[in-house]
């Protein structure tokens, strides 16, 4: 490895390790906040009124389950309203939504297609409740989810609460990879919330005080990542966002690489553009706390760090496969060394490799901690194995495309 790649490697390794140490230290400082004890039931009268908006565009096959899960929430019926907003669907979304007509908790709206943010905004305009939430029409809530979120609003400073979003029935490799990734996501989301540094209020079931919209306005298109922009706008206005890790929400994830690619290009491009074009002023500013000083800059630069390490991973795989190809073409098929002849010299224990192994163990720790929070047990499932083996191979696809979108100012589409 020449000097040209050595110096950036050391810098990137140091930055990544710094970030992981920061998060781990935060975890040990805030350990009691990661409790799995569910919220104590409270007096019915003390629950605030809540409106959940379900924006839907061509979600005819999932919206039924979404609304049913909302109606099954363990929450006083007279305090919970569900607004279904059909955003000009061309499938049977509206017809399915109309099956809920007559349910006193449900209101149905329909409008011309204008994008998710316009659908949510229509719901906000009609909502009169103290709290307003949103649930994507491809997601489902656990019956206890809302009860877990409400206690965070006892703190008058908290303006929004995010749930723990997990993958609904991971039934193939692509979804299993995402399941492990979402577990890391939940653990880090909780840590970021402890640092008051969340920069996304996910579409599935983030709940806001109505005052948020009064004070800083409704959702905007924001490169098709309105939930990210809303969180950044709230942080820019020093509004606190919390995470209720015991509030479980399940989302139907993309089942194939092309659909996952499309989703991630939208997310990553949206984050990069929002961060770079609209909220760059928050970078490295103490007045925006840990968000400005740590999580937002690191999330931005982590795209480049991830690309760098993915490239290294791909290079190693390429070298390994080339060596195997050489062996095969030269000697024909033969088995490698038997285990008892394994030589410890074959393991690369060079400094940079050791740091990478350390970071790798940190990642496993994050998945295990995430699984504890979601599954309520420590688990090393095959989701983790698939994640370790394949994530580095597919992530560069959307990272490269997102960077291209950032540079070329191209917009990523929803579908």
């Amino acid at each position, binding site marked *: 490895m020449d000097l040209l790649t050595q110096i950036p490697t050391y810098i990137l390794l140091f930055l990544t390790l710094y970030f992981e140490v920061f998060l781990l230290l935060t975890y040990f400082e805030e350990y009691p906040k990661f409790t799995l004890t569910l919220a104590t039931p409270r007096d019915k009268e003390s629950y605030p009124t809540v409106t959940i908006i379900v924006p839907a565009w061509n979600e005819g096959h999932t919206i039924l389950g979404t609304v049913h899960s909302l109606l099954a929430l363990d929450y006083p019926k007279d305090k919970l309203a569900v607004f279904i907003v059909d955003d000009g669907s061309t499938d049977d979304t509206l017809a399915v939504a109309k099956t809920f007509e007559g349910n006193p908790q449900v209101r149905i709206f329909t409008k011309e297609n204008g994008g998710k943010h316009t659908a949510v905004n229509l719901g906000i305009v009609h909502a009169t409740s103290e709290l307003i939430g949103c649930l994507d029409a491809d997601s489902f809530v656990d019956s206890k989810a809302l009860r877990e979120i409400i206690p965070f609003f006892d703190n008058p400073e908290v303006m929004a609460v995010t749930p723990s979003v997990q993958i609904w029935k991971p039934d193939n490799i692509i979804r299993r990879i995402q399941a492990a990734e979402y577990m890391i996501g939940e653990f880090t989301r909780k840590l970021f919330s402890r640092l*008051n540094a969340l920069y996304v209020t996910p579409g599935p079931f983030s709940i806001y005080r109505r005052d948020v919209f009064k004070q800083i306005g409704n959702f905007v298109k924001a490169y098709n990542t309105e939930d990210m922009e809303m969180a950044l706008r709230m942080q820019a206005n020093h509004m606190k966002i919390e995470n209720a890790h015991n509030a479980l929400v399940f989302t139907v994830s993309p089942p194939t690489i092309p659909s996952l690619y499309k989703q991630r290009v939208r997310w990553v491009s949206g984050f990069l553009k929002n961060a770079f074009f609209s909220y760059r002023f928050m970078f490295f500013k103490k007045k925006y706390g840990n968000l400005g000083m740590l999580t937002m800059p690191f999330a931005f630069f982590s795209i480049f760090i991830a690309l760098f390490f993915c490239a290294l991973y791909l290079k190693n795989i390429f070298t390994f496969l080339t060596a195997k190809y*050489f062996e095969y073409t030269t000697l024909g098929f033969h088995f490698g060394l038997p285990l008892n002849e394994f030589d410890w010299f074959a393991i690369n224990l060079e400094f940079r490799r050791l740091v990478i192994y*350390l970071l790798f163990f940190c990642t496993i720790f994050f998945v295990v901690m995430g699984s504890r929070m979601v599954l309520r047990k420590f688990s090393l499932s095959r989701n983790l194995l698939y994640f370790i083996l394949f994530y580095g191979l597919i992530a560069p696809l959307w990272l490269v495309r997102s960077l291209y979108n950032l540079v070329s100012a191209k917009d990523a589409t929803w579908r």
Partner: protein
Amino acid sequence: MQQQQFNSRKYILVFFITLGIFAIVFLFSDFLYRTRIAQVKNIEDNINRNILESEIQFALLADASCETSGSNPLLIDEINTLAKRLSLMEEQRGTSDPEVMSLKKYYSLLQIKDYLLLRERAKQCGEKPLTILYFYSNEGNCADCRKIALVLSKMREDYDNLHVYAFDFNLGLSVIETLKSIYSLENKFPVIVLNRHPYYGFKTREEIEALIPDKELLRLNATSTSATTTKK
């Protein structure tokens, strides 16, 4: 539930913890590296001692030592292990690591010493050991060098009495220069020297075996079969 606000002391503390971890990992990596270097040196010392012992034994007993076996299987095993380990270290630390290069030079000298001893013994005892000198270059992308190295390693594993000596053309050792001039080698890689005749370019196992006289190949096959049977 109070959230943490920006605290510059925590940022500084994390910086020093990270620096500390970096330092510990660096020291640990250096310790492992030194351990490996020491192990390689130890093998080289063993080989050197073995060669020296053989030389002394040969000088002391003169012709009588011809009755003992021509090749020391322990020595061959050690040379093979050393070759593998040096190759792995070179792969992992690159060709610019001075310590690895120094060990490689010493290994090359030991190989030449073993080769000379084998030749001397062959002359005195009338033996015909089969040796292949293999020259390669780590400069540039010599795919054929990697391929022929695989073939030779496999042959070395399969034939106990085959002596393969591998030399890096660009190691800057004067003895390698001397070997180059003895066999009038050109700067083309890979090249193997078999029965004092250089053969350039990649050769399959079958092609190399075709270059070995039938009688010697039969002898190689016989010894390897008997060795395999004995091992069982």
